[in-house]
């Protein structure tokens, strides 16, 4: 028989004491190692000690000792061996795999008591992911070792006594389930995989990279094909966000031939970096179309399966795009959708067919989630505009423009107040388009919004993304307009497609944002702040987005209709499982 790898995991708090909240988790070898379940150590000991450990913290250590001390588990390594932390990462993988296997194992071995403390088992298992890491650190601490060895003697006495009592019952059910387990090994493997996936989805996603985390930044830059130069004058408040030197050519060191980055991706990236391509819808569509070209041109090696490999091959392309300009939240959602699409696709199809399917899916996504959604939202929102309305809008949003255009086509008599903000001055673009349609417009800058808000009857804004608590991320200035509208009790309609709904929550605008080119704030060469780079105490901040809290938003217009901002997670739950990313 192969050696039993037994790893003990229980979460330790700072003082090394076992936290009573989580029951210890027992890790057994996987089914593949031991097709016959009775090869594992006597199951009798475990339920007894497990039940006691579920109730009190002290017995946690005694459980382990019960393992080592019981005569039937002589094949197990002693307590000192199992205390040694699993050092190699490869081992960890095996361990986590076996952890899941063990859960099923233990259940089918007829540990009746486990079903009693079944809840504890589940909690322990879920906590094991993080607990395991902590426990590995903790186990190497001397304090725990001492206490464990100290208690082992005690535990050895207690365990067999109670174990025998329960042994008879457990033994009989164990025999029963043995037959079951022999028969359904394959099905159980499939079930285990399913559980692993479910658990993986329930796990918290890894923490997002903060740019003041030097270690992570360094490791990320090592794999990147290009790295943008960091800004000369960095802002401390936004140290966690990428601050790059704008206007520098950063693609010079990329080779002309056999470049890793696909030319279409490079085009999209450079256009985003220069601000030629702006607006999250355009950027998402451009990115998806570049992906389509990439998929068309991608040739996997002989031994590589296209579906298995496409996601990994796409990663350096996405990293390049991120270096050019941080991805919009909608682009993140789209990539998440793409990855889940790829993982759901059939493996083993001919290359051309796989490619065509993938490309068709992407085109359908663009059609339904972006283009069609825009027309649906325009239709729904313009039902809210009546004759005589004065609509206040901010900046330029593709959606808001569609709404106004649709309302105009329907013949509704309304006028528009366009509020604009420097440095982008996108409102001027909107103004040009609206005047072309013959809509009566006024134009003010953000500082005058308190003057014009009285005139307005409703406010229509476009969001860059909607968060799970109902807040909206939009271009800087939207929050102020919404706040002013609330003050004057004007309804605020936030237009947003569902692919921009995110499961994230943010409480302020600083936690996550994007910093643009500070030079945009300088109007001309003889501006007072033109020499900001040389001025020692002057730093320019060009923040792109801000956060509108849900109290200031009256309603959100999405493809599903008009919903209150509190219904964003409901919409994600019902419609957008594939499109909403966790972070």
């Amino acid at each position, binding site marked *: 028989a192969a050696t039993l790898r037994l790893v003990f995991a229980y979460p330790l708090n700072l003082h090394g004491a076992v936290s009573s909240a989580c029951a210890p988790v027992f890790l057994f070898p996987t089914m593949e190692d031991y097709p016959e379940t009775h090869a594992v150590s006597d199951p009798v000991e475990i339920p007894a000690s497990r039940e006691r450990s579920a109730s009190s913290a002290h017995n946690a250590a005694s459980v382990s000792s019960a393992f080592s001390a019981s005569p039937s588990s002589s094949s197990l390594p002693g307590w000192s061996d199992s205390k040694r932390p699993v050092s190699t990462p490869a081992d960890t993988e095996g361990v986590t795999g076996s952890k899941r296997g063990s859960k099923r194992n233990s259940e089918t071995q007829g540990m009746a008591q486990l079903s009693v403390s079944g809840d504890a088992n589940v909690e322990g298992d879920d906590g094991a992911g993080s607990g395991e890491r902590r426990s590995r650190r903790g186990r190497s601490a001397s304090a725990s070792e001492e206490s464990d060895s100290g208690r082992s003697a005690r535990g050895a006495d207690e365990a067999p006594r109670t174990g025998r009592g329960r042994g008879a019952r457990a033994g009989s059910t164990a025999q029963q389930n043995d037959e079951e387990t022999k028969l359904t090994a394959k099905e159980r493997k499939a079930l285990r995989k399913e559980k692993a996936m479910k658990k993986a989805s329930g796990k918290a996603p890894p923490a997002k990279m903060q740019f003041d985390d030097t270690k992570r930044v360094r490791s990320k830059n090592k794999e990147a094909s290009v790295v943008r130069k960091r800004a000369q004058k960095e802002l401390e408040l936004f140290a966690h966000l990428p601050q790059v030197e704008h206007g520098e050519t950063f693609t010079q060191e990329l080779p002309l031939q056999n470049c890793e980055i696909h030319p279409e991706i490079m085009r999209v990236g450079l256009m985003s970096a220069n601000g030629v391509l702006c607006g999250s819808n355009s950027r998402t569509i451009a990115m998806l179309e570049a992906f389509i070209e990439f998929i068309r041109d991608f040739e996997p090696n002989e031994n590589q399966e296209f579906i298995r490999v496409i996601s990994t091959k796409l990663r350096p392309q996405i990293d390049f795009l991120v270096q050019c300009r941080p991805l919009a939240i909608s682009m993140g959602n789209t990539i998440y959708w793409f990855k889940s699409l790829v993982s759901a696709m059939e493996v083993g199809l001919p290359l051309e067919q796989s490619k065509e399917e993938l490309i068709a899916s992407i085109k359908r996504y663009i059609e339904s989630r972006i283009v069609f959604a825009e027309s649906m939202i325009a239709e729904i929102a313009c039902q*809210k505009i009546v004759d005589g309305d004065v609509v206040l809008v901010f900046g330029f949003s593709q959606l808001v423009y569609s709404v106004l255009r649709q309302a105009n086509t329907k013949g509704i008599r309304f006028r528009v107040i366009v509020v604009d903000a420097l440095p982008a001055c996108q409102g001027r673009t909107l103004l040009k388009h609206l005047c072309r349609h013959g809509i009566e417009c006024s134009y003010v800058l953000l500082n005058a919004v308190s003057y014009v808000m009285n005139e307005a009857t*409703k406010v229509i804004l476009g969001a860059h993304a909607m968060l799970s608590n109902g807040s909206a991320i939009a271009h800087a200035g939207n929050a102020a307009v919404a706040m002013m509208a609330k003050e004057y009790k004007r309804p605020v309609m936030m237009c947003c497609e569902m692919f921009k709904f995110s499961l994230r929550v943010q409480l302020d605008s600083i936690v996550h944002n994007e910093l643009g080119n500070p030079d945009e704030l300088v109007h001309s060469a003889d501006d007072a702040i033109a020499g900001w780079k040389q001025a020692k105490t002057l730093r320019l901040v060009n923040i792109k987005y801000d956060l509108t809290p849900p109290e200031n938003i009256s*309603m959100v217009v999405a493809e599903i*209709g*008009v919903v209150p901002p509190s*219904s964003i997670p409901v919409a994600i739950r019902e419609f957008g499982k594939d499109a909403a990313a966790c972070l």
Partner: protein
Amino acid sequence: MGDSSSPGSAASAEYLETFQSQLEDDTGIVAVAAVRALTAVLRLSQASTIMGINRELEEAQKVLIGVRQKLLQSGGGARTRTPIPLECACELFRRYVTRTSLEIPDMEQCKTILIERGEQFAQKALQSRHTISVLGQQFIRDGMKVFTIGKSRTVLDVLCEVQRRNRRFEVIVPETRPDELGYQMAEELVALNIPVKIIHDFAVASIMEDVDLVLVGAEGVLENGGIINLVGTYSTALVAQAMKKPFYVAAESYKFSRKWPLSQQEAAYPSRDAEKFRPLRDVRPASLGRYNSCSDLTEAAQCTPGTDDLSGPECIVYDENPSYFLPHCDMTPPDLITLLFTDLGVLTPSAVSDELIKMYA
């Protein structure tokens, strides 16, 4: 009544009859009557496609609403003031028809299931008030003073349930002129041996400090969790919020609608017919334009001084003076509502949208 083709009009006549007869019925819930009428339309329908059925249902809905509005405007003993519950129930049923037709492509099977479900819906609707009364009674404890407006049978059921559990409580109702619904409600409550206090409509704010909670019904529940209810609900809700009293709404789930009016004007249903409305007094002077016909100021000075500003322009003639604002209903926004008692459970206003998205998904 629409259809020129004879099967159509025969069907219309029949379902209208069904509708009227259901309403005459003592437990005449409009929604139940409407769904039964629409189920009858389904049964009689000779359309061969789902779209045809949908079109017929849409027309039937229009006819039903027309009938209802006529009934309301003639002031007939209509229990609900607006066709909103009728509209909501019809929308829900039609939405359900569409969903089922997408799941079951076979027409005949689809129809059978829809007719069956229509009947189930009617049964559930009849049960819903009971569910609400059981849920709502736990909020009214011994010794509480409950404030309610108008005559809502749902609220009546809740209060009845509380009385049944032998708790002592008092109900305060405003008169609700000119319909005097307050008196009708008081009548019902006295018959149930519940102590009632009737107040003037404007004494709401004065009495609110004594009140423990406010419980009202609803004509319709809006997507954002707000409600449309008889006029006066909004003011009561504002006063309750100012005095920090909980404001509860008892509404069945078939009253949930996807409407979202942005202002009171949008929400207010067609007002009472100003001509049919009998004001308490006719304030118009015997000869109109008495002041306007004075040619100079000295003559005007000899006129009996009134409230009119004599220095104003003389040539203005007002079409309708005085004019009246006689809304049936007003809209109460969700931030004034604490909880809603529905047959789907006790919901917060933001959960209404959750339920609606689930229903309409």
